[in-house]
């Protein structure tokens, strides 16, 4: 039988750096391993590691959520999956594997095959701690905002430990809702998908990526209209993209369009290896272990690891931002050129690093300016899209941006700059 002999020495004796030594009690620290309920979000590269680490350090009540199924390209790092599991639910296979390896009697893991947005607030409020190992920025923002909202509306503080990796680099952080900075506070630090100006893609391509984006963003719609949606997981679609991009590259004498690059650009692929997941997941679980058992102080509040040129780590306290749209109280400021229409403004904020809202609805004090859903409201407000923003609101007005997919109301104060003319029109 698998016991916890490796965990006992970590809890039995109080170390000299313990900051709550007076209140520390071995038995209650031990009990917390079996009573704490932990939610793991993501059963991918980080998730597999997180589940293994939690199980081996004695945690017994774990839920895991993932909406994805297993793909061949996961097998170079997601070690709970085998070739025969391709196509099956990640969370279910991962939970089964852990149960089998650790022993059904030793651990209770409940998988959920679906989206985090499908679960209710009540579901989330049952946990003592959430660990997220996701690559989707949107999902990380969602869980962050949900937990911060829970802390302010229900006074229920559920720590969130967030990990992320990219190639040889990664970061882990501890978020204590209402007390520390939150995920949204540092949205502008997250590396973003590279985008290319449309005029370059359409008129003056220079790189193979420009040709691929031309096929991807322009040519696909011309060829198939709205009838067939592009799906990067369908080999024939990728083949079409590749051939179309390659033809364009030939016309412009551009070298370097390959199938691998096509896939990388269309799917926005981020390199990933087992090693980095191992480092970041272990760091997240180490913080979870310290936080729940009080065996040692936890990270305050951010560590980044970089292994691509020797090894560097950087540990620091990330400060809360007073104008954070999730945990702050002040609106952000935004400067908008006077010539911009509401439509142009919306396109800008979609890509803006600290906003990144995909389907924005916008309101001012006097009412909705544009609602992306429901359809009836979209119809009523879409006439505003072609109007200049400075005709709809005045300089210094506050607007609120929302997205049905995010529990965030983003407040912006708009200041108009003097540029009256659109340089694109020249």
């Amino acid at each position: 039988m698998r016991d916890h002999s490796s965990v006992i020495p970590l809890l039995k004796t109080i170390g000299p750096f313990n900051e709550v030594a007076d209140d520390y009690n071995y038995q209650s620290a031990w009990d917390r391993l079996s009573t704490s309920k932990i939610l793991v979000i993501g059963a991918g590269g980080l998730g597999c590691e997180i589940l293994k680490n939690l199980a081996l350090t004695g945690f017994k009540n774990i839920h895991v959520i993932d909406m994805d199924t297993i793909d061949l390209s996961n097998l170079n790092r997601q070690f709970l999956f085998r070739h025969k599991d391709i196509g099956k639910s990640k969370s279910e296979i991962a939970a089964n594997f852990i149960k089998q390896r650790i022993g059904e009697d030793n651990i209770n893991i409940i998988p959920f095959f679906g989206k985090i947005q499908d679960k209710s607030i009540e579901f989330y409020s049952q946990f003592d701690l959430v660990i997220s190992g996701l690559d989707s920025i949107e999902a990380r923002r969602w869980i962050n905002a949900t937990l911060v909202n829970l802390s302010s509306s229900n006074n229920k503080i559920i720590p969130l430990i967030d990990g992320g990796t990219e190639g040889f680099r990664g970061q882990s952080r501890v978020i204590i809702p209402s007390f520390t900075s939150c995920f949204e506070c540092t949205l502008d630090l997250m590396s973003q998908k590279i985008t290319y100006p449309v005029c370059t893609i359409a008129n003056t391509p220079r790189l193979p990526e420009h040709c691929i984006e031309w096929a991807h963003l322009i040519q696909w719609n011309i060829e198939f209209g709205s009838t067939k949606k592009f799906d990067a997981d369908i080999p024939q679609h990728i083949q079409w993209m590749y051939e179309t991009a390659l033809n364009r590259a030939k016309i412009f004498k551009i070298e370097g369009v390959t199938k691998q690059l096509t896939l990388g650009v269309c799917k926005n692929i981020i390199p990933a290896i087992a090693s980095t997941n191992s480092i970041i997941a272990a760091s997240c679980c180490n913080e979870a272990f310290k936080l729940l058992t009080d065996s040692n102080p936890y990270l305050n509040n951010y560590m980044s690891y970089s292994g691509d040129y020797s090894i560097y780590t950087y540990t620091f306290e990330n400060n809360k931002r007073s104008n954070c749209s999730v945990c702050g109280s002040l609106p952000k400021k935004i400067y908008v050129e006077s010539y911009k229409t509401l439509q142009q403004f919306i396109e800008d904020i979609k890509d803006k690093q600290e906003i990144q809202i995909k389907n924005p609805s916008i309101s001012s004090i006097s009412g909705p300016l544009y609602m992306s859903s429901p359809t009836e409201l979209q119809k009523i407000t879409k006439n505003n899209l072609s109007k200049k923003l400075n005709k709809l609101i005045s300089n210094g007005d506050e607007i609120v941006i929302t997205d049905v997919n995010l529990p965030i109301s983003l407040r912006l104060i708009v200041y108009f700059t003097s540029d009256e003319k659109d340089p694109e029109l020249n």
Partner: protein
Amino acid sequence: MTIDKDAKYDRQLRLWASTGQSNLESSHICLINASSTGCEILKNLILPGIGSFTIIDDKKVSNLDLSSNFFIKNNEINRNLATVTTKNLNELNTEVKGFAIEKSIQDLLIEENDEIFWQQFSVVIISDYTPKLNQLIDILWSKQIPLMIVNTVGFYSSFNLLTSETTVIETHDPSKLYDLRIDLPWEELQQFADSFDLDNLDDQEHAHVPCIIIFIKALQSWIKTHEGQPPWVSYTEKKNFKKYVELLSRNIVLENNFAEAVSSSHRAFQITDLPDSVKQLLKISKENPVTKNSSIFWIYIAALSKFLQLNNDVLPLPGTIPDLASDTKNYIDLQNIYKEKAKKDQKLFTEQVESVLESIGRSKDEINNDSIASFCKNSRLLFVTIGSKKFISSHFIEQFNHEKDQSKIKKYLIYFGILTFNIFINEHNRLPELSDLKEFIQLYNEKIDSTTLAGSDVKVFEELLSHNTRNYTNLNSLMGGVVSQEVLKLCTGQYVPIDNLFVFDGIESSSEKFKIEY
């Protein structure tokens, strides 16, 4: 590589491409002690597809092993550790070959004193210190096989890399500077620049001149009008040059290429010279002439030295340019001029490699064009370090005694504490506990540093003894990730590995790296 393999390894091929992958697939990793840290390291190497691995361990699976090691199954208590972990790890990737040797390293060293046995390994890893290693260290050192030694105790860990020399060609330098030769255009580039008559272009053409051309022109006319002085002599002059470039534009708001030139003016200030790191390499090469047994890296350096004599001390051109605001034709023409020059340099360099090979009596068949191309592309960014074989040195202790930074002092102490921890086990055959603190400090003073410890320093040792386990999964797994990243770098021959000691504090979640010099 098959399509299936391409797809399976897609996420890592984007880091080290097929050249790195085939190096990885021909590597053989040896693990001494099938500890939980050791198995974590191997997991991270088997998944991306190393060629083979060998685990050496004579111990039987204990409850403690099972408690912290995911690669042992519940019914495998009392079986041989090496055998069960080899089998369970091998399930991760059936393309990898796994071997178990059910012997202690000490016994093995007596049997395998013919050093051929060790020759098969690309890297040897010892997870948790094992006594009487000097013989092994000597063998591996002489064969230039990197040895990694990793220790975790409670929330602390350290990892040494012992290797006589590390050379890296594909460093993937993160500064991402381009070698553009704006200050020193070769004939074809100069001619191309001259073909643009800025004053007589129409507005459309003027707004599509690549900024490299703008820089070449601006720099040359600047030097003419500034008594031969380049703009990079001072900050003020650099700022003035920026303004100078801006004034060449007809309308800086509308001309993206000029806006780009202004914002990337640092490119114009890059001086084409021999970096100190390359000079150092040439010096080493001159002092240690290549022989029949030299590695290809040093043969390239010898060839580089000849190349530089023929090429006015200018390195081979990498031949890549960044994306630039420009129309397609100008950009592609410019790109081709760089590519052509790079090819020419590569040809001249290949001739020098041939002549070096010939001079040491080796065959020209060794010439590998991909490898030469990669060397030429990276000649400015090459990495070499002469390693060290020691765990501790008087110089290192001296450094520690002069250290003022509290966070660094702590990392020294963590490392010294771990060394003392291992010495204690060696002497007493058991783990030290908090009640052993006094003796522990004595041992430290005796074996490591005789200087009296400050009260705050003793805390680090207290922490080690309070949480005196080598089996804390989270630290095992974290170090498994750290060490495996370094193995991947050594095996693919890409990215720069650590030199040569890493210390991690899992309480503060911070780290430090050191070099233990002689």
